[in-house]
């Protein structure tokens, strides 16, 4: 079995949090939330600082600023020269990096457990003391434009994905790419970056996750020493982004590009996300995605379209409910040679309709539940992955209790819940359908 399109999209259930990890949480007086996950098998520690600020929090006109600032965070402070942060981490055998999403920006270091103090001192320093020189910000703007060239403009799948997403969200800033629209990236300034930094980078807008060979007491002492003195920001309020109006009109997009070799159909439906204390529907959708397209051999789409009707060479369904606002439920069908996109899409819709009518196969449902239990066990082997789950959840509006309840919520999902959730979201008026096509072999979309 080979993954054709999206090797990164694994079965949604592998992203389950585990319940059994030893987790301790506390909050410093300046409102920095701290999560400690213990794993003493190897003398390694991961420090992650997550800010509740992502691309969807940007003002109109400065798209890409959250991600640009993430790059500039490596440019130095009063006490660290540009590049010295990463160099110091590497000099101590560690590695570091950062990432930006719509809902959060995160920074992490992985290092020997006895060097935690060093990275904590530096991470705390740059939370409030960033310095940006003229040279730094202009050169780095070139770098992010090269990043856009590499990740987006060189990849027809990414280009079309950006366009489809913009069509999915009529009003919510989730429709704007994280990297930014090129013409706005080219105009970003040092002041834009500093405005963003000063507003959002503060202990009362951050979550510190420390995972690995460390005790909560050690973390508490170090955090009080280094993060404790930092002043909170006054600009932090509960995030309220522009919300989606009722979506009443189906959107259908086509894209052709000489670089496309394999045509395919995508469909994304607007879908609810995990909410604090209310994760049941998201859990049902998670299981729905697994049943429909989680496994390349046994999922409903694979069975019907790849095995029985032989109309497709690859199918998948994907849903990730960890999101601050409404997210999407995604389907992909890659047609077999000689099968048109129109036929592939119709077949996909027939499968969905049949699924709603006949309901969930009890044996398949039982296998999903088994995998939920196993995922809890396997997740224990990757403490960095656990750290990411907590950071992601806490920056998308969830609580530690929600993270820990998630396996039970999943376990409690019934077959009827899955069908009810599917019936609710599979509404073409809230969906974007995309046809990716070879240049010169365009089909006319109905």
């Amino acid at each position, binding site marked *: *079995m080979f993954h054709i399109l999206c090797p990164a999209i694994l079965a949604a259930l592998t992203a389950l949090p585990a*319940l*059994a990890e*030893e987790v301790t949480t506390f909050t410093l007086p300046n409102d920095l939330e701290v999560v400690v996950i*213990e*794993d*003493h*098998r*190897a003398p*390694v520690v991961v420090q992650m600082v997550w800010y509740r600020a992502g691309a969807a929090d940007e003002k109109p006109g400065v798209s890409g600023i959250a991600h640009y600032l993430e790059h500039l965070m*490596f440019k130095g402070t009063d006490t660290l020269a*540009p*590049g010295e942060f*990463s*160099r110091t981490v*590497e*000099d*101590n*055998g*560690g*590695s570091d990096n950062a990432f930006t999403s719509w809902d959060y920006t995160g920074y992490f270091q*992985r*290092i*020997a457990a006895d060097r935690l103090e060093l990275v904590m001192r530096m991470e705390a320093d740059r939370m409030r003391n960033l310095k940006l020189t003229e040279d730094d910000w202009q*050169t*780095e*703007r*070139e*770098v*992010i*434009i*090269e990043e856009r060239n*590499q*990740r987006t*403009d*060189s990849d027809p799948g990414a280009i079309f994905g950006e366009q489809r997403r913009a069509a999915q969200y009529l009003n919510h800033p989730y429709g704007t790419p994280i990297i930014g629209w090129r013409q706005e990236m080219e105009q970003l300034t040092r002041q834009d970056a500093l405005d963003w930094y000063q507003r959002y980078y503060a202990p009362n807008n951050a979550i510190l996750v420390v995972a690995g060979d460390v005790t909560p007491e050690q973390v508490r002492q170090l955090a009080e020493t280094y993060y404790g003195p930092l002043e909170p920001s006054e600009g932090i309020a509960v995030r309220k982004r522009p919300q989606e109006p009722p979506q009443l009109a189906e959107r259908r997009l086509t894209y052709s590009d*000489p*670089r*496309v*070799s394999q045509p395919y159909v995508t469909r994304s439906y607007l879908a609810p996300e995990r909410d604090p204390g209310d994760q049941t529907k998201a859990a049902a959708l998670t299981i729905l995605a697994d049943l429909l397209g989680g496994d*390349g*051999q*046994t999922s409903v789409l694979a069975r019907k379209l790849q095995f029985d009707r*032989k109309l497709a*060479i*690859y199918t998948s369904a994907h849903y990730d409910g960890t999101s601050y606002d409404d997210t999407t439920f995604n389907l992909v069908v*890659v047609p*077999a*040679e000689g099968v048109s996109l129109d036929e592939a899409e119709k077949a996909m819709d027939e499968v969905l309709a049949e699924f709603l009518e006949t309901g969930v196969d009890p044996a398949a449902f*039982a*296998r999903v539940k*088994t*995998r939920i*239990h*196993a995922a*809890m066990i*396997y997740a*224990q*082997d990757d*403490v960095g992955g656990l750290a990411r789950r907590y950071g992601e959840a806490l920056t998308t509006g969830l609580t530690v209790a929600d993270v820990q309840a998630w396996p039970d919520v999943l376990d409690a999902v019934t077959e009827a819940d899955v069908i009810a959730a599917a019936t609710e979201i599979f509404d073409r008026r809230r969906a974007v359908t995309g046809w990716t096509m070879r240049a010169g072999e365009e089909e006319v979309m109905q």
Partner: protein
Amino acid sequence: MIRVLFAACLALAAALPASAVEIREVTSPGGIKAWLVEEHSIPFTALELRFKGGTSLDQPGKRGATILMMGLLEEGAGDLDSQGFAEARDALAAQFSFDARDDAVSISARMLSENRGEAVALLKSALTEPRFDDDAVARVKAQVVSIIQSDEKDPNTIAARSFDGLAFGDHPYGTSRNGTIDSMTALTRDDLIAAHAGVLARDRVYVSAVGDITEAELGALLDDLLGGLPETGAPMPPRTELGLTGGVTVIDFASPQSVVTFGHAGIKRDDPDFFTAYVLNQILGAGGFGSRLMDEVREKRGLTYGIYTYLAPMDLAETWQGGFSSANEKVAEAIEVVRAEWARMVADGVTEAELEAAKTYLTGSYPLRFDGNGPIADILVGMQIEELPTSYVNDRNAYIEAVTLDDIRRVAARLLKPEDLRFVVVGRPVGLEASN
């Protein structure tokens, strides 16, 4: 119930000292050797199998046979068809992955302690009695063909393939493991049976296990799992001479950015200078931020999002390679910077401070790799293939520490040849001439 069990296990783990991994060399009653690390705190085992030879064992005209064969092992075995196999695997919550690389094929398994026996039986059927049913073969072939078609329009793959073709010519290293659409389409069930017999043999298997398993349990497992495989497989392919020359190859591709793969001859893994070259490469281009190329090409000039170099000591040839992408208008300047950095390294070597920083990083980061049952199993099987002793995990940092400034200078002069660098550029570069 399960939760209570975990909590107890974790409490036990927390009471253990965090110490280096203890590797044991074990031999099964049937004579199969393996490396074992017992780690009982989480109730599962990571098992890693690697068979040397890999896709380079594809016979002439049968390019793609090994990768197709490996892709079909989970598509029906014994009494189970493709879906039956997947259902059985999921019912046990076991995870199997099958991979095929130039020098080895690998099978990675994660199995819960509670049903390990059944999971092993299932994996054994995939290894020893794959069905290669016609419909499964056709289906997986179509997937590979789609990947081949996509690769033909992917600038990164085009660059890598072109570089490999220049470097290795007719040797298997010179072409895609997937074969061509023609070679893939023409493969028959008999070709798959032949590839299976040639690749999955006991004379080339390396094994490691990490997790909730004892020596006796592992021995029995291995005899059961591998005992039915043939004793010997296909003869190993021959070494190949590098056909690379210095210069620039430009492949036209409509894109705002040019993708560049570059490199020249490298060094064998068992060469006495290997560690010096490894440290040198860390300073030159492997170190991410802090490496010279990242500093010069990205940080100072903003010419790329990322640039890297690596040593590729494969079983049958060695290269020193790198890659980056730059806007079409900038790529010529970036290539000049790379050449200049190559030359500067030969002329001036590295500074004491650079050497120390590289050593601290390499020695400090090494233990961080051993951070889970899966990663440890992977490292251990790789060490066996490289014929390293178990003591290597303790000695390896001493090899790094022993590298001197003089060593670096000598090895830079021996191996780094700016004039030998071949750059394959896929895009519409401005102001850059193909040299030959």
